[in-house]
């Protein structure tokens, strides 16, 4: 059988970095092919070339044996290539059908289109009502809009970039059913992910990229996740571990924490009660947008709370701002690295000052001690192996993983009594992620309490003692992670939106 798409020696260089170096791979019709690699390995550049967003410097592509060189995404779509991006491009205020019509070259009348949408969504088991407003949809449902938008153009090859990062386990199952059905009908799927268990469950073949080069190919079903991870990273990985500890006194206690949503598209916090003891790691899961940012803000002090809701070591700290909470021992690291946890155009020294001023004695009576801040920044860089030419470099010049190490390191080195982190390893390569997780565990071993908010369930199961899920701003009763199954977690997270009603 001839390949549907064959890439031969594709090379793409950007100033200072070769994003793809003679990459070759071929995909057969109906094949589900995984593209694996760490952040910065060149996966995105490769699919952008296939989708016509980037032109290769060298190398050729063939589709059905004929030369294929799309100049723009429209040409790629015409050739039968569809792509579902990690970040959705949908208008909140428009309906599903209107959104889909906007992305089509010759959109039919809205009523006819709605009919088509219904048909496709029935055929592929993607429940979606065409007249619903996108702003009211869950992340999983929005993704279905994007998928259906692609399917309406009857693609031969569907590219999916990290599709499951916003889904509950049940929604992932629905997605996989759809993809298997498509594959059975002969549509090839190029599946980008770094979630190895998913790839083992779904994909027929895998190509592994590291630093722009193909470093291996494998049949995921016959390869262990660990072997694939080590191919990705190029070295043997250590699993984070820690000695068992006995839990101490209660450090942090939330009693019925309720706050209105701080912004139009935010989520209110609803009656959150939980307590956290010395040495404990609490994992908080949930689909993005269910109150994670708001919970972090309520703990960091960016959002104040009325009396009686937030207690640290028995003292009500609800009215305190971020700095007063830091002095009291409660530290936080938000999800968004650039612009929230760090100021992009400021140097690492200045970013070290950003949260370290009070606890590291970097200021005296309001006057800042820059040499001390530089020392603190260098200590973070040294201890957490942050790759950068020096503390004088701007935060935005660092790669995502390195900046994340800096941000987490900045808080960990301040010896917090309670540390709250949101998505500590999002977009971070496997070895950096392992280092960050180990640092969080070490912190707990030394007697701190740690709250890890994450959408990566494997991560939460790996490091937390107890697990709770955020759903629509409510926090489930925390449960011990021993013996907790993925199905149970999925139900705690609210099940599959639009499939079954699991709201309390």
């Amino acid at each position, binding site marked *: 059988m001839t390949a549907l798409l064959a890439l031969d020696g594709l090379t793409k260089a950007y100033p200072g970095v070769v994003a793809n170096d003679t990459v070759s791979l071929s995909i057969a019709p109906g094949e589900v092919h995984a593209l694996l690699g760490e952040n910065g390995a060149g996966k995105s550049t490769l699919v*952008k070339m296939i989708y016509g*967003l*980037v*032109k290769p410097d060298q190398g050729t592509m063939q589709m059905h044996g004929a030369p294929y060189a799309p100049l*723009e995404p429209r040409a790629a779509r015409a050739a039968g290539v569809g792509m579902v991006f990690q970040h959705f491009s949908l208008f909140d205020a428009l309906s599903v059908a209107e959104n889909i019509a906007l992305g089509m070259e010759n959109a039919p009348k809205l009523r006819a289109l709605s009919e088509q949408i219904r048909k496709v969504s029935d055929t592929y088991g993607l429940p979606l009502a065409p007249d619903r407003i996108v702003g009211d949809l869950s992340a999983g449902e929005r993704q279905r809009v994007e998928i259906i938008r692609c399917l309406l153009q009857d693609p031969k090859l569907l590219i999916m970039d990290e599709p499951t990062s916003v889904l509950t386990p049940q929604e992932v199952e629905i997605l996989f059913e759809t993809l298997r059905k498509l594959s059975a009908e002969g549509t090839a799927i190029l599946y980008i992910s770094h979630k190895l268990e998913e790839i083992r469950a779904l994909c027929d073949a895998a190509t592994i990229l590291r630093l722009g080069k193909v470093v291996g190919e494998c049949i995921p079903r016959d390869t262990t996740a660990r072997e694939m991870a080590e191919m990705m990273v190029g070295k043997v990985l250590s699993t984070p571990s820690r000695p068992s500890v006995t839990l101490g006194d209660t450090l942090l206690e939330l009693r019925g924490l309720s706050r209105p949503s701080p912004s139009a598209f935010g989520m209110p916090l609803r009656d959150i009660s939980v307590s956290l003891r010395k040495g404990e790691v609490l994992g908080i899961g949930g689909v993005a947008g269910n109150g994670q940012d708001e919970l972090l803000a309520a703990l*960091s*002090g*960016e959002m104040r709370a009325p009396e009686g809701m937030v207690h640290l070591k028995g003292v009500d700290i609800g009215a305190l*701002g*971020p*700095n*007063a909470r*830091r002095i009291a021992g409660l530290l*936080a690291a*938000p999800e*968004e690295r*650039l*612009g*929230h*946890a*760090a*100021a*992009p*155009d*400021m140097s690492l020294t*200045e970013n070290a*000052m*950003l*949260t370290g*001023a009070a606890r590291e004695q970097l*200021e005296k009576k*309001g*006057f*800042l001690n*820059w040499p001390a801040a530089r020392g603190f920044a260098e200590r973070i860089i040294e201890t957490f192996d942050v790759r950068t030419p020096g503390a004088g*470099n*701007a935060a*935005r*010049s660092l790669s995502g993983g390195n900046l994340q190490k800096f941000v987490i390191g900045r808080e960990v080195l301040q010896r917090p009594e309670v540390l709250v982190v949101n998505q500590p390893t999002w977009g971070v390569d496997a070895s950096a992620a392992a280092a960050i997780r180990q640092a969080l565990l070490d912190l707990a071993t030394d007697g701190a309490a740690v709250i890890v908010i994450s959408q990566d369930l494997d991560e939460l199961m790996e490091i937390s003692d107890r697990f709770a899920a955020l759903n629509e701003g409510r926090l489930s009763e925390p449960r011990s992670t021993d013996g907790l199954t993925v199905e149970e977690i999925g139900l705690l997270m609210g099940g599959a939106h639009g499939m079954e009603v699991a709201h309390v």
Partner: protein
Amino acid sequence: MIRLEKRPQPSRFFAYVTPLLAVLATFLFGGLLFAALGKDPVQSIMTIFWEPLFGEFAFYYRPQLLIKGAPLVLIAIGLSLGFKAGIWNIGAEGQYIMGALFGAGMGLAFYPTESVLIFPAMVLAGAFGGWAWAMIPALLKVKFGTNEILVSLMLVYVAEQFLASMSLGLLKNPEGFGFPGSRNLQQYASAHNAEIIAGSGMHWGVVAALIAVIFAYVLLARHRLGFAVRVTGEAPRAARFSGVNPSRLLLFCLGTSGMLAGLAGLFEVSGPAGQVSIDFNVGYGFTAIIVAFLGRLHPIGIVLAGLLMALTYIGGDIAQSQLGLPAAAIQVFQGMLLFFLLALDLFTNYRLQFGRTEAA
């Protein structure tokens, strides 16, 4: 195809060089403008930039440099604090007027008593007037989320009406034969902001401007408040996360800029201008916006930019009288300076990329 590519790091080189390039580009295009008006471009630019400093009457123009530069620098320093934090006080002109009215009012209330305490009291009143006028947009923004750009700008026109009303009414000189305008403070020793060294142009406003420059420099470089200002401008969410209270910062920035503009008004009315009159304000509050940006919102840069702007004012006047250049041409010339500065500023964060197009 030419396209812009974001630099991984802001370029230090361009940050320092763009003001110079902007001045050169202004020379070039200003020269073309003057040539189009039928004047000799080289002579016109020489008249504007050379005559005041080294010409025949430089002994008269050089003190003018300080007299015109001081209010510009004083106002621009205050504005730069807000601009750095993304707080846009466009109404310094109004705060300048209110400072002058409050300060002059305080002095005239004591007329003709002589006391060393009168001038300090006027300084306080002037600062208060500017501060209070700036508090209006600040409080409206904090309480109701109004846009400080619009409110502060509109208040300029309100202040101008106040000024006219005061010159024709409450503060009108009772011995002025019915002409509009207050008593001349230059003839009231206790209230006169006289030159500290005669003939140097050095009055108390110059001293205040220098103090403000040093204050702003130390604040931005070494103090937590200055750091809060910079972080808020760079990344507001990060600032809030680090513990900055945005409302308090807004009140501080608008208050400080209003206060300094008020001081500038007071020093002007009690010194070079001498009296409250309908046409007292000549646009220092607006020109200071250009000065703040031309000086890259940096205290030292603002001093240089303030002097440069003062130079174009004085040189522009000479060019008007000697060469017959229209006043509008001089204003276009000054506007060019800001335009080129902002346009060239792009290269601090971006570089030009020649060659293939790509939509990545």
